């Protein structure tokens, strides 16, 4: 039941407008809009899973124990590129507790969703330093790791390519000699005879004309090097080949259905015979998406049918043998009129995507088509080269190509502003997208896509409204700003589904295929369902595990799409349930269904509310006094896609954005003169999220994303030498940010321009907080010391050296 109408939130997308309308016709104002007060949406409801987590009772992959379980340890190569001449497992086989030693010999299949270039183990050659070469299956992990050291491999080293630009040279060795023969999705694919795994090209308008019309230009090359999502819980997987010829898998992954499809396809089983479980996840941030380690563990497990085989990554393996982020070099040129109006953008992105390209291809495409950021470019020529290198494969990392390419955009805009002798705010405002704008993809925006200017104004107020502190003995001071835009890089068939059932007492259970990784989707599900069903969140139980036997299908939980798409699926499933109850009630009350209303506790006759039936009496159909029962048991299913999500056309354009979240970020920094250390005094973020579902939770998302990107901007980088070896694959050398690196103060604000797709107008936010961090910090550095940087991480060492030169 809605309470007193003291506060109104204008919402022309009230999910139960029918009911609200009926109740509140007297409250319609002159514009005819419906005013709705939210009871659950917008509130800081506590997460339903926090108690288990804070008492140590939530169980994660490594907590899973199964009968007869064996443990695997994996041998990695000492060369980043080499032919495998021989593998001698005889010594290892004799070690204590060893059951079997496994290699890639005899493996004849490849896997991958986009470009099928992956094998579960190296077969003839190794292509990167973390690749699986052989594995020991033993009674415990310790014994397995001891035995692995006894495996002897003979290699014939090959030349190593560590950077895309080297891989593109004419005389570069081919990392995949037969890449032209690999299966791939239409519209993608390697260029045979080269190290190019994919080339994406987008053309909007007329680039030549765009540059001819320009009166001023800026260009630059920007590098966002390899990093790791580095969730605190490392990757892990358990695979079990059962005696009944089914496969069961547990994984620290967000894509159980993709794992199921891949294993079913490769092991030639109907999907119903492959079952995947996802326990609690200790963070994902991207690198536990697509299929990563599961095929390797499945290959190992296939040699010991009847036994589950568990493997959990060491931190080193988690850094080097799963998926990396970024590895992107962006060359960008912007043309503009003297008054600041952008006329053209030309971008070429080189992604050093590692030894296998399947997981990196869409990152490069997202980076390409959205590198225009929050701004309209009437003419654009955007290209991404996905290039093989002898380094670990790149895959999804929160932000998905957007922070890497918009790093260039936002830096160049500041540089352009200086060139034009114009305020960078005025320059940005001249070009922000809004109602009537057309994106690079050719999508037309309307007001409900969001208001970047409002976000910019909030950040400007937070950071720039007071005087900048003057330089003193110890510090230089600076402020910097960045716009932000992201759309989900999904797939046209991507859908999220919801199973909802009413229990006999009117409480509800909801199962979905969306993976909770900490982002709080379980709370969102509760709150959205509570709002539509008009029942308290305490009466709604949300799933804690995913099991492909019980959970409805979801493509994978990425792209900041869960609130929008998953939330929409929840709304649809709730509305179906209400309709089912009304249908039964119509029968019992002997009226038409449209004479009935629902208010969370009853279904009742509009014109005589005393004629009513309780939800409890309808949940399992309606039972008369004599026991006869009519009507359906209230279980519903529903799903939701992003409307008309497409694939690129011949110009690389298409409806591949659909749901846009705009934002702005800024910072106040000081630079310690003695050391070059950058201290972030204040970081501000504002995003137009359409509708805040949970105020405290969304704040935590932004704070976490900002922190992650501060790490990337100031200290995190996985460094590979010219032989493809990494010397800092551990936290102390990788420089993971600690609590002492958190900004002194964070301002986090939201604009709510309701969108057209998500529940109550909500849009995605999970990834967006990482996007504007690096450019706002580097823009602030220029403001402080007058030096432009084009690469991150900007460590104290690098900054000090440049400051000394000046």
């Amino acid at each position, binding site marked *: 039941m809605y309470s007193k109408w003291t506060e109104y939130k204008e919402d022309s997308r009230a999910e139960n407008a029918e009911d609200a309308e009926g109740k509140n016709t007297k409250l319609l104002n002159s514009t005819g809009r419906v005013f709705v007060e939210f009871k659950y949406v917008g509130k800081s409801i506590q997460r339903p899973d926090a108690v288990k987590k804070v008492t140590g009772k939530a169980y994660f992959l490594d907590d899973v124990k199964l009968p007869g379980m064996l443990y695997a340890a994996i041998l990695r190569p000492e060369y980043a590129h080499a032919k495998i001449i021989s593998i001698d497992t005889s010594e290892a086989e004799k070690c204590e507790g060893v059951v079997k030693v496994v290699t890639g010999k005899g493996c004849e299949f490849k896997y991958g969703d986009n470009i099928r270039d992956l094998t579960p183990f190296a077969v003839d050659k190794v292509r990167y330093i973390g690749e699986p070469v052989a594995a020991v299956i033993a009674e415990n992990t310790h014994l397995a790791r001891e035995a692995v050291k006894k495996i002897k491999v003979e290699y014939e080293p090959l030349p190593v390519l560590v950077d895309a630009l080297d891989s593109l040279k004419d005389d570069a060795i081919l990392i995949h000699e037969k890449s032209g023969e690999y299966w791939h999705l239409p519209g993608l694919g390697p260029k045979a005879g080269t190290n190019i795994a994919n080339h994406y090209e987008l053309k909007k308008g007329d680039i030549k004309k765009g540059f001819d019309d320009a009166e001023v230009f800026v260009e630059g090359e920007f590098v966002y090097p390899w990093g790791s999502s580095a969730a605190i819980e490392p990757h892990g997987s358990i695979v079990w080949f059962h005696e009944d010829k089914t496969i069961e898998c547990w994984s620290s992954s967000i894509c159980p259905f993709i794992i199921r499809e891949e294993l079913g396809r490769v092991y030639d089983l109907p999907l119903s015979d492959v079952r995947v479980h996802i326990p609690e996840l200790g963070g994902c941030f991207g690198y536990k998406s697509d299929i990563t380690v599961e095929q390797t563990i499945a290959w190992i497990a296939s040699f010991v049918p009847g036994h589950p085989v568990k493997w959990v990554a060491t931190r080193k393996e988690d850094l080097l043998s799963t998926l990396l982020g970024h590895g992107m070099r962006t060359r960008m040129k912007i043309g503009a009129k003297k008054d600041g109006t952008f006329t053209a953008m030309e971008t070429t992105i080189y992604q050093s995507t590692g030894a296998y390209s399947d997981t990196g291809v869409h990152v490069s495409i997202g980076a390409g088509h959205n590198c225009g950021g929050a701004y309209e470019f009437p003419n654009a020529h955007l290209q991404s080269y996905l290039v093989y290198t002898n380094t670990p494969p790149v895959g999804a990392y929160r932000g998905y190509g957007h922070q890497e390419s918009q790093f260039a955009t936002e830096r160049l805009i500041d540089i352009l502003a200086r060139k034009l002798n114009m305020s960078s705010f005025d320059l940005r405002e001249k070009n922000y997208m809004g109602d009537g704008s057309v994106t690079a993809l050719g999508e037309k925006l309307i007001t409900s896509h969001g208001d970047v200017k409002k976000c910019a104004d909030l950040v400007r107020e937070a950071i720039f409204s007071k005087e900048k502190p003057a330089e003193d003995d110890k510090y230089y001071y600076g402020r910097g700003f960045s716009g932000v835009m992201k759309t989900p890089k999904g797939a046209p068939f991507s859908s999220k589904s919801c199973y909802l059932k009413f229990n006999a007492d009117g409480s509800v259970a909801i199962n979905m295929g969306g993976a909770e990784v900490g982002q709080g989707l379980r709370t969102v599900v509760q709150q959205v369902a509570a709002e539509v069903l008009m029942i308290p969140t305490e009466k709604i139980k949300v799933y804690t595990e995913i099991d492909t036997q019980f959970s409805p299908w979801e493509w994978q939980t990425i792209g900041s799409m869960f609130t929008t798409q998953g939330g929409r699926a929840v709304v649809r499933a709730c509305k179906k349930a209400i309709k089912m109850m009304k249908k039964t009630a119509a029968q019992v009350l002997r009226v038409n269904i449209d004479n009935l209303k629902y208010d969370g506790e009853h279904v009742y006759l509009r014109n005589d509310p005393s004629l009513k039936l309780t939800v409890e009496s309808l949940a399992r159909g309606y039972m008369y006094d004599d026991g006869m029962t009519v009507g359906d048991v209230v279980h519903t299913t529903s799903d939701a896609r992003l409307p008309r999500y497409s694939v690129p056309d011949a110009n690389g354009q298409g409806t591949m954005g659909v749901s846009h979240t705009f934002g702005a970020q800024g910072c106040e920094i000081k630079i310690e003169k*003695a050391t070059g250390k950058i201290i972030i005094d204040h970081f501000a973020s504002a995003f137009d999220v359409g509708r805040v579902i949970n105020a405290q939770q969304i704040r935590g998302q932004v704070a976490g994303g900002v922190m992650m990107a501060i790490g990337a901007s100031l*200290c995190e980088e996985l460094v590979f030498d010219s032989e493809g070896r990494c010397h*800092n694959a551990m936290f*102390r050398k990788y420089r993971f940010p*600690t609590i*002492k690196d958190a900004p002194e103060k964070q301002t986090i604000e939201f604009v709510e321009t309701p969108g057209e797709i998500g529940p109550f107008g909500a849009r995605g936010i999970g990834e967006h907080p990482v996007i504007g961090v690096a450019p706002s910090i580097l823009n602030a550095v220029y403001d402080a010391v007058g030096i432009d940087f084009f690469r991150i991480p900007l460590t104290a*060492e690098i900054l000090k050296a440049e400051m000394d030169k000046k």
Partner: protein
Amino acid sequence: MKNLQLIKSDNLSELLELLKKEERKYNIIAGGTDVMVLLKEFLIDPQCLYDVSGLSELKEILVDNDSIEIGSAVTMSDIISDSEVSRYAPVLVSALKEVGSPLIRNRATLGGNVGNSSPAGDSIPALFVLNARVNIVSEGNERSVKIEDFILGPRRNVLEKGEIIKSFVIDKMGTDERSFFLKAGSRNALAISKANLAFRFMLKDNLVKSMNLSFGSVGPVVIKSTMIPQLFIGKKPDPGLIDKSCSLVSEEIKPIDDFRSTAKYRVKVLENLLRKCLDEFC
């Protein structure tokens, strides 16, 4: 690490006796914060570990008139919270606060930090300026070595087979002495030093009576500065000497290039640390 044996005792002489007879490859372990990491990363491969953490003889802090003796197995947390050490050897406390995290400091020991003999060991420059002596024991023998003579190079020291560090004897700083410990690392916690320095001085009638300066993480061993103190001794703390001091840094240290930091940066960083330090001092 498979058939690792742990040998523990609460009696020092018993442990030393066993150690003397030990034929296998061994490591001494106290808190284990270095040894366990080396074991897990397969960088050492001992067959047994001699655990000294239970020896009460190694866990005392004794204060007398002009020195403090700190047992080699006292945890860094306990050293930091000891009121006498805080009062009379603050430079050591400052240095230890830079080691790892509180979780590490609750286990790590001076004996381990010095015994590990890493050029980046934070305690070592502080021990230098406190004129530390290292008391070494073995079965039937005791000897004492100056800290600057104890460490020979990265992960190498003068300990012979059968010997362990019993304690450290450090100066008790006087009331007219002051000290600093400064470190440059690229992240606050768990940072492996890029360069660090320990500085101790005494002023009397505004003249520099004594000055001890040591640099760490800039060479294979910690370096005791000889040229820079000479500039100041007997004179007033003169800002004019700061530039000259900084220019002497590259003569005093022979920095190494490694993954963590380049040689040039280390010189620069050290110069800057020194400048920061002398600015306060002058």
